[in-house]
């Protein structure tokens, strides 16, 4: 077992990764993940570590633990498990957190407040804490040349929200000059139990009435770019848009989307 000095190469274009090595890198730069919830603070992205380890079948990749049935086949089926990322919008990110540094200043202007009159004025810091949930399920990847089509379905195995989520995604790896570009398009389905736990309101939180949100479809688009400067350094750019308009029934939402933008340097250790 060793720490790798992974090099940007043709292998990067077809998404190959060395097995039996830890891949550790750190992104340093400026960025933000906007929080669509009322009273939720945007998350400045300053330091973002990346950690991955792939064995012949087992893998750990930035928080996701998985086991691939046929890793060399164009049709890869995996058992996967990870913490449900929904809780990220409810966390008051502290500077001590290793994934990002926070500050009281947002990088963008505060969003306009368009409260629906019939909805109670609720802010997430007034609600019960949303716990981290552990999800597990199956993912399927079909690899065709530079394209990867994937489907996944995960359900809560920690008994936190007792629901499930599934997604379809298309991703392409492309090289433009010296820059590796990876656009993705996808859509998440989130069950009523998931949305009710995270974005609904319980009778305890709002004695007037409990508010259920129901299931939702959340399309998203992402683009990730890497411009290698040397064997271990590269410029990184990331832009993502997540649509939450079908969850707008929740009184917790102030905006119907979340955006992530980051520009910085990546160093491979």
């Amino acid at each position, binding site marked *: 077992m060793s720490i790798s000095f992974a090099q940007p190469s043709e292998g990067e274009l077809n998404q190959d990764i060395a097995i039996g090595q830890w891949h550790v890198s750190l992104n340093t730069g400026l960025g933000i993940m906007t929080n669509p919830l009322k009273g939720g603070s945007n998350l400045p992205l300053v330091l*973002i570590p*990346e950690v991955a380890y792939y064995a*012949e079948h087992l893998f750990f990749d930035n928080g996701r633990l998985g086991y691939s049935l046929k890793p060399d086949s164009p049709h890869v089926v995996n058992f996967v498990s990870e913490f449900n990322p929904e809780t990220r919008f409810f966390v008051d990110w502290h500077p001590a957190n290793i994934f990002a540094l926070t500050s009281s200043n947002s990088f963008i202007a505060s969003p306009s407040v368009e409260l629906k009159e019939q909805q109670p004025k609720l802010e997430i810091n007034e609600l019960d804490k949303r716990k981290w949930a552990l999800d597990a399920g199956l*993912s399927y990847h079909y690899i065709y040349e530079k394209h990867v089509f994937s489907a996944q379905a995960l359900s809560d195995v920690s008994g936190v929200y007792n629901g499930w989520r599934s997604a379809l995604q298309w991703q392409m790896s492309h090289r433009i000059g010296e820059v590796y570009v990876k656009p993705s398009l996808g859509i998440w389905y989130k069950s009523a139990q998931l949305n009710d736990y995270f974005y609904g309101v319980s009778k305890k939180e709002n004695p007037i009435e409990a508010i259920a949100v129901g299931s939702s479809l959340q399309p998203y688009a992402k683009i*990730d770019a890497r411009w290698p400067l040397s064997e271990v350094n590269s410029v990184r750019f990331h832009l993502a848009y997540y649509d939450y308009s079908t969850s707008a029934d929740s009184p917790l939402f102030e905006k119907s989307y979340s955006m*992530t933008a980051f520009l910085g340097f990546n160093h491979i250790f």
Partner: protein
Amino acid sequence: MKYLQFILCVFALVIWPLQAKATKDILSVSPKVCVVSEQQDICDLNLKFTVSLPKKMDVCLYEQSQQLQCWQQVKVASFNYKAHVHIKTLYSLHNPHTDEQIATASIDVQSTRAKTTRRRLRSPWSFF
């Protein structure tokens, strides 16, 4: 009714492997594995096929979809063939009149060098 379903399931579980074994014995190939040093290397093999049918009939032997040899009214036969393969290859015995597949056998190609890379399955930015 429950007992009938149970008995049918047990019957199927017992009979199906026996039938599979019987089908497998109709066509056999030797050797069954070829070992190469690199993953993409071609394997040159002198294969020996043995055909053992329950009754005399017309049959043809195929490598994937390519016809190698046909026999007329044969019950037992053997056939030597020089194969060039680089992936797991399927050989099958067919009835030329009905195109029915009668039996299959395969040879596997294995590399002595362990694979050093695999496909990455997650975007590093999935959390954000």
